[in-house]
């Protein structure tokens, strides 16, 4: 009896044609909608905490009679990026709280001015980081008409060097 049933059992076939059709439709959809875009990354930033605090490091027009304000949580380093009239990066000033200040400018005959400034900035910040130790914050002030691309490059130079992080926590402000 069992032998008989086995002999006459209908052959079961899975109709894969509709499934294939659907797969090809899906494939077509994904191929048509696929746009490999440039990888975006995020860049967390802070604001200079208060209007009073911003720019404290910058010793422009110091008043000798004024008593210095002590703000213990103020970052040690302030980087000031100044733009030329056309908006490109012209020079960078570095101020270290209670210490030195210097201006980085490309040599007059230089063709890749901003590149040189940024290389020099990273090198100097590496040295400063070694001197001041643990503080991983810095204030970046920039001219209002500085191109965003250059502002981002300055922030990049402050945040990390090829050998590791420098000042990853940046506070942004305008040049006053």
């Amino acid at each position, binding site marked *: 009896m069992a032998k008989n049933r086995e002999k006459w059992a209908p052959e079961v076939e899975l109709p*894969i044609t509709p*499934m*294939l059709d659907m*797969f*090809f439709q*899906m*494939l077509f959809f*994904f*191929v048509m*909608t*696929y*746009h*490999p*875009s*440039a*990888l*975006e*990354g*995020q*860049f*967390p*930033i802070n*604001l200079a905490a208060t209007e009073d605090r911003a720019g404290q490091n910058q010793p422009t027009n110091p008043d000798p009679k004024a008593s210095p304000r002590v703000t213990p949580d103020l970052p040690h380093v302030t980087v000031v990026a100044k*733009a030329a009239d056309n*908006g490109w990066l012209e020079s960078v000033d570095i101020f270290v709280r209670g210490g030195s200040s210097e201006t980085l400018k490309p040599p007059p005959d230089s063709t890749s001015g901003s590149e040189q400034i940024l*290389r020099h900035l*990273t090198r100097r910040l590496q040295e400063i980081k070694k001197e001041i130790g643990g503080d991983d914050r810095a204030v970046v002030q*920039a*001219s*209002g*008409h*500085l*191109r*965003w*691309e250059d*502002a*981002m*490059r300055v*922030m*990049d130079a402050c*945040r*990390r*060097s*090829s050998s590791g992080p420098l000042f*990853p926590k940046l506070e*942004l*402000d*305008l040049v006053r």
Partner: protein
Amino acid sequence: MAAMVGSDRVELNLTPLLDLVLQIIMFFMITVNFVSDQVNANVTLPSSTSAQEIQAKTETDFIVINLLVDRVDRKDAQGRTSRDGYGRPIRDIAQPKTMRIIFAGREDIVFRQGEEGIALGKAAKAISDLARVLRRRQSIREKVAEDQIKELKVPIIIRADVEIQYGLVLPLIVQANREGFSKVELRAQTVQQVQR
């Protein structure tokens, strides 16, 4: 006739084909990037070596502000669109230079050089309106009064074009901060750091 009797039934083996198609579909499904309505693809983002990987967010829990400069395709002598080595059209800044601040679901704020103050005023109002709506929503969700909400949990993401001025971006961040948005992120194209 004899040949027909002796021959086997010929079948096309579809299994490897199906495997391949399924693998390709799987690839596209994983890599598909349904760009949010809020993200404007015309923004030329600056490159950054220190930009971090974006943490996954759902569509509704962030606000994107796009700042961009209008661009036009560069044409050659024959009037054809010039393309770079990858076949992408080369785009120049449209003259006169026109900029836009774009919030999703709102009318674009279009302005030219010298009109930045007016544009920033409109953008500040838009941020303020958004903050009011989000504060109300957050107060309902957290069951507290609106005036007790000090910080809005929704992050603001700023996507600014390379040609936008720093002085346009920072006031937006300040305004967002003033309205209670405690998280502000900038967006950039990630590039590998070049050894110097």
